[in-house]
């Protein structure tokens, strides 16, 4: 277990002149390193307890209590940890049938989730059901491509959030899958699904212009499809300014993040960790921030 993969990767982030020129004149080159650790889950589907011992595929795997233990261990080792979920928190065990998602929300709040997005199954208790359960959550639900106007969910989600960790600024937004044909009409009511590509580009640019060092998309679009249905891989290729897509919906077990090139040829990472909380994904970003004066630019290889 715990195969450690080192991804050969370099993501490029640029920002404007963030140090005043007078600082530069005193010291032409400043180097600061910061590290951000992202832990993530998707499609946990109300799997509070571990799978039974006689489960022929995942005996004894998963369980929220042990997940918390791991998260605490990582938090004790790292300064800047973000905990994120890519949707489908609900539906899959009697915990949801009987308690309507309240326990899932309470537990995610206890575990200290920083943000989540809405999956198609998070509509299974109806929109009022989602709002009721969400009242037990202390973290935001991010979704940018559902228009919830005229629905009970209106006002209960955010388009994006910006989180500061150490000296880093992280922009996170959410994308949901097309609901028609996946969720019974009456469960999503007047929710309007909007094509995710344009919106993603718009928000990612906005987050960049707000000075985010890293832009993360929590996506429930799905990893990839045989058809041309929009997926995380298509999203990565057709957008810019997104550095990491944390995906869900297709229950895809990835050993390590997939690397795609975006419109500008820059690397985008996509990761997804199956379902049911069997695995938890971790991605560490180390930012080596260098501030150069104009003359120093010549020295860069």
């Amino acid at each position: 277990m715990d195969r450690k993969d080192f991804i050969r990767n370099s993501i490029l982030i640029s920002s404007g002149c963030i140090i005043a020129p007078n600082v530069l004149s005193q010291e032409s080159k400043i180097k600061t390193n910061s590290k951000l650790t992202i832990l993530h889950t998707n499609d946990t589907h109300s799997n509070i307890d571990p799978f039974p011992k006689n489960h022929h595929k995942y005996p004894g795997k998963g369980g929220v209590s042990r997940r918390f233990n791991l998260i605490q261990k990582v938090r004790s080792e790292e300064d800047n940890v973000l905990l994120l979920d890519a949707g489908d928190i609900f539906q899959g065990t009697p915990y949801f049938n009987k308690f309507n998602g309240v326990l899932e929300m309470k537990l995610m709040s206890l575990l200290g989730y920083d943000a989540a997005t809405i999956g198609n199954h998070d509509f299974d208790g109806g929109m009022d059901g989602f709002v009721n359960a969400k009242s037990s959550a202390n973290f935001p639900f991010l979704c940018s491509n559902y228009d919830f106007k005229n629905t009970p969910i209106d006002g209960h989600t955010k388009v994006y959030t910006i989180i500061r960790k150490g000296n880093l600024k992280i922009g996170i937004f959410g994308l949901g899958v097309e609901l028609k044909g996946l969720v019974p009409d009456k469960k999503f009511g007047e929710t309007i699904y909007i094509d995710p590509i344009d919106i993603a580009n718009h928000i990612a640019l906005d987050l960049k212009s707000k000075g985010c060092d890293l832009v993360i998309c929590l996506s429930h679009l799905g990893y990839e499809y045989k058809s041309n249905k929009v997926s995380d891989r298509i999203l990565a290729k057709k957008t810019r300014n997104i550095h990491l897509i944390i995906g869900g919906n297709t229950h895809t077990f990835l050993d390590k993040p997939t690397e795609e090139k975006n419109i500008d040829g820059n690397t985008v990472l996509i990761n997804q960790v199956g379902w049911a909380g069997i695995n938890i994904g971790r991605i560490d970003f180390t930012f080596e921030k260098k501030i150069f004066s104009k003359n120093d630019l010549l020295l860069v290889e």
Partner: protein
Amino acid sequence: MIIRYILYFIFGAGLIACSSVHNIFTESNTYIISDYLEQNNQADSLILPYRLSLEKEMREVISKSKNNFTKSRPNSSLGNWSADAILNSVDKSVFGLKSYFCLLNYGGLRSVLNKGDVYLEDIYKLMPFDNEIVIVELPFSSLEKIEKYIISSGGEPISNAILKFNKINFKNPGPVDYSFFVITSDYLMNGGDNMSFFQDKINVIHTNILLRDAMILEAKRQKYLVFNKENRIFLY
């Protein structure tokens, strides 16, 4: 060994007197949540009252299984068991002489059934949705749409029919005059999983039975879950 690719991206060089550059190195890891990890007391005490309340009801042994029922496409023992259970739960007299078969969706089976005791909870995990069994009457002109759908999806659980050489063959074929019946869920009838052929429906009979309840009854009725690996869908 960590291989680092370092690239510098200079934003606005030449336009402004300074630039900030990030080299970002990434490293990833996947943790398996398993028994090497301790339980967490805080989480356990939050879960406990909910678990106790559920266990009273859900840990009832309702059947036994000598096999692992797995889920796969185009055919699976789990798909066969599920579709058979739904078929068995409906009153066949409504069909008269007409053809009928049961059609579920692969994606709607949310868990597997394991060898050993079968708990009520296992059926809740297999069929967590509160979907109702409905009987949909369709014109024969819709049959080809269903065949195409099943072939392109790679297989769906069916009962009382076989799909071979791109054709659905009913086990008890009635007269091919006008219509046939599909036993399915209200979710699929309403266009779930893009089964748009249900829009052609002539008539719908509501059973007011949940798929899950039918499966629970069927599991209880069978001393050991009936294990059937037969192939019902041939994708050629």
